[in-house]
């Protein structure tokens, strides 16, 4: 059973997607609800499996000693393997993916447009994400990375908002551009390492001994650079971030949740899983730039979020800002202060998880109000089609009308702005602590984010929920039971990990220690 569990995690959704075809034949047109039920059961089982995995997970074991690791030959000629395993870095991501996929099916419950396509593609996306987080063979990783791309493209392009086609193609081209560079980096790693392999564990030993130049440039540096661009687009790191606001605004709610909650983390996960252990020397050389980019992300994302009038776009920019914390924390791995490196790296991975849950809440809650009002404006744009509304507040005073909803939004907003006792605080603080131990001035500039993040959340909260009630919305009912069922688990996790972060830390710390060891020994 142990050795099956990872494979099941990845391929259960594929099975679900495939099973939808005969299901469509059998019950088909009369009962389109069958698809969402299949998707719900499949993702529910996957979540259950992920929890079972977590129960048996021993954070002190490396992937080579873990009972869950599976290593089989796939394309023997090129030494490509089906090599999957779980460690402290991937465990939280697996839990996050399984949880958000399951909840996203709930968020998608009212999808009526071509449900077969939607839920089948969603499950394929789910499989791709799980595969990325569990692969330990670069080629396999790359395959899953690309597998995920296509369903995402269609999910945005077909079920999205008015500009969905434009958003989908932009997302796709940006990511494809990154994929090409990642592919080059991967192949270079393969051909320059001895023996030729895609095995990420073997490459830890061999990649750092690559000694070649191309066009007068150091090969390892080129590989680092290619991989970095590939991953940076996903994070997204400034200046590769402009696909994100557009994709978020246009994507349906559940897809925004997955996009911000899981997909963005693949960028930083890729850096930590592949670039970091394979190219520690380059990490050390590049750390300052990474921290710099992180601070730019924090500030530029936040400043842009303040100017947004669409709540989803605001949250999208807040993601840019929050992922900046991850970059800053990651860069702190070069800290000569041992506690600093640990704080930074643990903070980064915790922030990946916590941002996933918090931002999922944010998007989900905005989805709730959007379903009722069919708009998400904090302020209507100045050139709004109805000139009577242009520049006016989009809502106002909802707090009196929908107290439960408002309470959850307040909870999510305060989590987003890093209130202590909610999970975002501790991870952000750790990123700063780590960053501070190496990049003092940069981090001090970055702490402005503490203020700026509060500005846009409180500004939006004030104009939407406080003030006199906008008469237009006086018939609105509060959250439905379904909405509550989705948001409460997330809120519980955010609160629990905010008060007691130890379980998360214990899950990730040993693996990150090993990673720090690899980097630090390259000095």
């Amino acid at each position, binding site marked *: 059973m142990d050795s099956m569990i990872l494979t099941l995690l990845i391929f259960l959704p594929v099975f679900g997607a495939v099973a939808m075809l005969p299901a469509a034949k059998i019950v088909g047109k009369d009962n389109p609800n069958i698809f969402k039920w299949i998707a719900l059961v499949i993702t529910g089982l996957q979540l259950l499996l992920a929890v079972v995995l977590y129960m048996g997970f021993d954070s002190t074991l490396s992937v080579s000693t873990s009972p869950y690791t599976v290593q089989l030959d796939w394309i023997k000629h090129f030494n490509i393997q089906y090599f999957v395993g779980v460690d402290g870095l991937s465990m939280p991501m697996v839990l996050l993916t399984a949880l958000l996929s399951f909840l996203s099916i709930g968020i998608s419950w009212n999808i009526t447009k071509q449900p077969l396509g939607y839920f089948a593609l969603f499950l394929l996306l789910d499989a791709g994400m799980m595969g990325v987080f569990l692969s330990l063979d670069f080629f396999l990783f790359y395959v899953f990375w690309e597998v995920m791309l296509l369903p995402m493209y269609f999910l945005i392009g077909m079920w999205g908002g008015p*500009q969905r086609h434009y958003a989908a193609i932009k997302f796709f081209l940006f990511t494809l551009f990154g994929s090409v560079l990642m592919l080059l980096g991967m192949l270079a790693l393969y051909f320059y390492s001895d023996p030729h392999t895609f095995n990420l564990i073997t490459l830890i030993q061999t990649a750092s001994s690559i000694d070649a130049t191309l066009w007068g440039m150091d090969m390892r540096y080129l590989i680092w650079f290619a991989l970095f661009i590939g991953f940076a687009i996903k994070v997204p790191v400034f200046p590769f971030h*402009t696909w994100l606001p*557009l994709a978020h605004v246009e994507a349906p709610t559940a897809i925004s949740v997955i996009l911000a909650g899981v997909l963005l983390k693949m960028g930083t996960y890729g850096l930590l899983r592949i670039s970091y252990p394979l190219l520690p020397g380059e990490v050390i050389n590049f750390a300052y730039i990474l921290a710099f980019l992180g601070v730019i992300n924090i500030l530029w994302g936040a400043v842009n979020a303040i100017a947004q009038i669409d709540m989803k776009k605001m949250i999208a920019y807040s993601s840019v800002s929050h992922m900046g914390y991850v970059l800053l924390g990651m860069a702190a791995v070069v800290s000569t202060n041992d506690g600093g490196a640990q704080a930074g790296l643990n903070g980064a991975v915790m922030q990946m998880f916590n941002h996933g849950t918090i931002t999922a809440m944010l998007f989900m809650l905005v989805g709730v109000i959007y379903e009722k009002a069919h708009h998400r404006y904090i302020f209507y744009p100045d050139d709004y089609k109805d000139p009577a509304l242009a520049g006016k507040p989009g809502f106002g005073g909802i707090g009196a009308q929908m107290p439960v909803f408002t309470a959850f939004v307040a909870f999510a907003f305060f989590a987003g702005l890093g209130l202590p006792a909610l999970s975002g605080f501790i991870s952000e603080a750790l990123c700063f602590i780590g960053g501070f131990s190496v990049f003092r001035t940069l981090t001090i500039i970055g702490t402005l984010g503490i203020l700026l993040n509060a500005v846009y959340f409180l500004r939006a909260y004030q104009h939407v929920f406080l003030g006199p009630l906008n008469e237009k919305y006086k018939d609105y009912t509060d959250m439905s039971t379904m909405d509550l069922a989705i948001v409460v688990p997330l809120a519980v996790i955010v609160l629990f990990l905010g008060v007691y972060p130890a379980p998360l830390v214990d899950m990730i710390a040993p693996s990150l220690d090993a990673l720090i060891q690899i980097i630090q020994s390259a000095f």
Partner: protein
Amino acid sequence: MDNSTLFALLILFLPFTAFLYQLFFGKKLGAQTHLVSLGIMGIVLALSLGFFFQLFNHDLTGPILDVSGEWFSTGAFTLELGFYIDKVTIIMLMVVSLISFLVHLYSTAYMKDDPRYSRYFAFLGLFTFSMNGIILSNSLIMMYLFWELVGLSSYLLIGFWFEKNSAANACKKAFLTNRVGDIGMFIGMLLIFFTVGTFSINGITGAVTNGAFEGNMQLLSIAGVLVFMGAVGKSAQFPLHIWLPDAMEGPTPVSALIHAATMVAAGVYMTVRIFPFLTPDALQVVAVIGGITALGAALIAITQMDIKAVLAYSTISQLGYMIMALGVGAYQAGFFHLVTHAMFKACLFLCSGSVIHAMHHSLHHLGDHHTDPQDMGNMGGLKSKMPITYTAMLIATLAISGVPFFSGFLSKDAILAGTLSYYHTYHGWTIFLPIAGFGAAMVTAFYMFRLIFKTFHGKPVKPEIHEHVHESPLAMTAPLIVLSVLSLAVVFTLPQINPLDGHGWFAHAVGNGAHAAGLDIKHVNDGIHHAHHDAMNISLIVATLGILVSSLFYLFKIVNVEKLTSILNLIGLYSLSKNKFYIDAIYNALLYKPFMWFSKLASTIDWDIYDQKIVDGWGWITMKISVKSQEADYNWLDQKIVDGFGRFANYFGNELRTTQSGVVQNYLMGGIVGLVAIILIFQQF
């Protein structure tokens, strides 16, 4: 677990259970729901009293409790949380739980008809929980945690009547202004942490004593001032004081509890805690900020017409006193003033609440929804109608004005002695500190009696309103009586009863403080002792002057105030005070507006220019190139390759321009073809 730890845990978490109860089950008991909160606060008060009696255990010298537990650990990096209880902690706990209890009691009448009655008590519980957390913290990081949580409860309570735009604005302003200070506090904490390796306050003091900053005292000064920035925000010190007057949008009992007696004093409490490792340089900054705040806010209070605005600026001014006291090294005096101020200022606010409540009901009775119940211009002559409120408020006013027999006299006198002694040591510009201190003392006596005379004395300005004003119910007057009794000097000086001598149980319990970063605490206290007599004489004179002038203006009306105002305004003095030195306007023009403009600009750059023009421009260029190359090269390049690339680029451009969904499979196919090609190429290496 020993009893002290258990009691500390109970004091911390019981208010939180009140919060949870009111949040989830608040509707169950309807109008009686306050009984649960009141009961819980009663228990907390009893537990605090239990600690309080330990103050008189003379064998006790060190802390009663100093425990830590691991919060989480990554191995090399561990964060601990823990309690630290010494006599200062106990006194602070006592102050908070007592006033919290009284405000709960008072609120049962004041908030009676509010539709969100249970939510109000929930927030009060959340506040008391967070405040107790700050008090009990043994480390800066834990303090910071609860620091932000009181910020949350303050936000929620200022915005309690959130339908009012002014309240919605005020709560946001309070939270954001506080965050400015918190950033400083956070950076300061990190600076210290990466030198001494701990967040524990005692640990830091110990490390500083052992010379952790030897040869680098400047760093400690900077770090100390940065941590102190947190107090500048929370205790509404210049230049971050702007949020507190706006915070008066909250219900008046909240103003009394949070924005007068306890939360705003948290900044002072924190400064008391970090006092041992604030270097003399840092302390000088602290003193100056306190001095500016004490005098500046008092000057603003003179011209305010809103009864709560007067008290708000008065609070800022008195907090400035406490901060200034700590800055000049008068540790005991600073903390003493925190405690006496908590009593008399809570009393003043609750009295003002009682007046507003009465005015409100009278206006309600008259069906008048336009007259402002807080405007002193509508009051006058309430003395006969509200005798209990009047007496309590008069006692508290005498206390804040520094009249002998009342608590404020003792604590203020000690602070003034501290500033005098500081001047005697440093000379030069430091004369500003005693000037600010005595000046503010005079102004305070003046504006407080202005408030009393305008509100309670003279003829009613609006007789029809006055007609229907009644004394408040017992639930409201009882706290007033308790707090006014606690504004008497003798409460703090027992067992000795000489009204001019502050040496009693309080002084004995708190002591003179210790210092680890280069301040000669004994020298400071000797200086204070010597300056004590002068300070007392001058402060008696200035207080008398203030009250006298005030009564000439507003009681006997011998001086024509309006004429005097217009004379003063010839050089803009009146406007300057009335408009709060234009500080809000300056921030708005120099910080807020330019920043909002910048943020709009950033958004334009990011989207309209960078993304739409530059990023999408690539698509456009690629398309152009592909079209040209296709035309020119079709005939002589290998047809398949050109076709493949051309089509690829064509799609690329077309998609971006016409925003149509494309045949994405082709790209993937292209990718796989490319991959094979690249593998073949690379195999040559």
